[in-house]
């Protein structure tokens, strides 16, 4: 709700104007007002109850803003970590394709060399050369397979780390949101308190006027 100073003729501030009714929780935006801050005016009244209410309101507002800021930050971290997790998963898929092509091609090369070797005379040097090359490619394929498995383990570790970080940030954001709600309740309580107080004060003044 926008600030509505000047409605009352006295220097009292309407309790309703202390509330941010146009600010849905979680939006994070703060409307700028051209009028002075009502809590500052309350603090300057000299009335102890009004000053206490103003302090409570200011504390609750600060706590709420801080919680909202924390929640926004944690939510941003959560989004970032989730995106990183998905990116790591896609990267792992690309590495799996690459590994499959490399190991499969090496296995096929080893098989082709073996077939070629079998076509030659067993005792010839060419056959031995082809056989040795076949075994070399086969060994390379085995090594690459193990390296690929290790890379997959690394990728799984990274994915799990991102997932864990995202979950942690999500929990922190949820806690910050709860704190924000608590601060909002405190703010409402402070405003209610001041409303009751100002109402009682007004009634007392009215009774005094009627008596005189």
């Amino acid at each position, binding site marked *: *709700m926008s600030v509505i100073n000047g409605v009352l003729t006295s220097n009292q501030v309407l309790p309703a104007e202390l509330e941010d009714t146009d600010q849905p929780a*979680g939006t994070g935006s703060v409307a700028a007002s051209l009028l002075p801050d009502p809590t500052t005016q309350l603090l300057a009244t000299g009335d102890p109850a009004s000053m206490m209410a103003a302090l409570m309101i200011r504390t609750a507002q600060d706590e709420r803003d801080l919680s909202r800021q924390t929640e926004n930050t944690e939510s941003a971290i959560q989004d970032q970590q989730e995106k990183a997790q998905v990116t790591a998963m896609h990267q*792992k898929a690309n590495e799996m394709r690459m590994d499959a092509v490399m190991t499969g091609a*090496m296995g096929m090369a080893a098989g082709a060399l*073996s077939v070629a070797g079998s076509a030659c005379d067993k005792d010839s040097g060419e056959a031995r050369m082809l056989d040795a090359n076949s075994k070399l490619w086969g060994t390379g394929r085995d090594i690459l397979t193990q390296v690929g498995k290790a890379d997959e383990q690394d990728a799984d570790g990274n994915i799990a780390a991102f997932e864990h970080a995202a979950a942690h940030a999500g929990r922190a954001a949820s806690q910050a949101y709860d704190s924000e*709600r608590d601060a909002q309740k405190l703010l409402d309580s402070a405003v209610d308190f001041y409303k009751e107080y100002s109402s009682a004060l007004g009634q007392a003044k*009215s009774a005094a006027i009627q008596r005189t």
Partner: protein
Amino acid sequence: MTVGAVRMSPIVAAPLPAQSTPASGNGTLLPTPGTSTGEACNDAMTMLYTVMSEQGSLQMKNGETSVDAQRTARDAANEEENQALAREQKADGDGSKGFFASVGGLVHDVSSDVLKLHLVSAVRDADSDVVAAANSPNFWKDVEFGATKVAEVAAIVGSVAESVATFGAGSVGAVAVTALVLSSASMAESDCHVLERCGVSAKAAMYIDVGCSLAAAAVGGYGAATSSAEKLGTLATAAKAVGSAMQTADGAAAMVSGGAHIRNGYFAADAQDASADATHAEARQESIQQVMNMLLDGIKDASESNKRALQSLQGAMQTNAQSLVVAGGRIA
């Protein structure tokens, strides 16, 4: 008087005043409730009350619109997740046919079509079965597994044949058979875990497996050391031919296995991609749900806060009215 003249002139309907025009078109002559203009709202506080009330309604309407939009986005994300999960299951091979099922289906379809003399259908069915097999993850898994086993068996038989060719015909029988049995036992244990299924512990089975391999190698080595060129005979020549054939089979199976491995790798990578998409869609859904919860909380808070503000204003208006009454009484 101009009564006659009035009657003589054509009757023209007088335009209705703007205030009496029904704004909503529902037939009422009263102005739309809630408008902050008009003589009824000339008091500043009343006008303020009306504006605040309108603002509250507007906030509620905006909130509902936002929640609806978020719900639509969440449903879309849910649909994306379902599609991604379906793609993942497909890439994992859930429900797809294996090698023997695919070949059996192909043979059955083609043979039944040929027996009915539906040659065009036979070609069409064969084509669709081949395409289905090519896109079936389980088919390629079976192909890779089978080709790998064929390559292993061919390698063992080929190595034994090579040993036979090296040992010659004399003492080759016992040595070759022993090496073959030991090597085959080792392979069967490592692939099928026969001993473990018979109740032997995994550790003991591993030692037996390694022992068989070492024994096969030792027997082969002994045979190689004690053989001589004179012992080569007809059997050795035949063994040499078998060795070459097995080497060819080994190579061919390795090539098939390599091709199938590439295909299986692509299926696994597709499943991984689909899993990533599902994760992304799930995270989006959770995020949208959080925003929806916050919006609902915000609407609730705004409604309550607005109600309190209106009550406060109402109280101020009452106080103001009471003050006027008191002041009026004192003047009187």
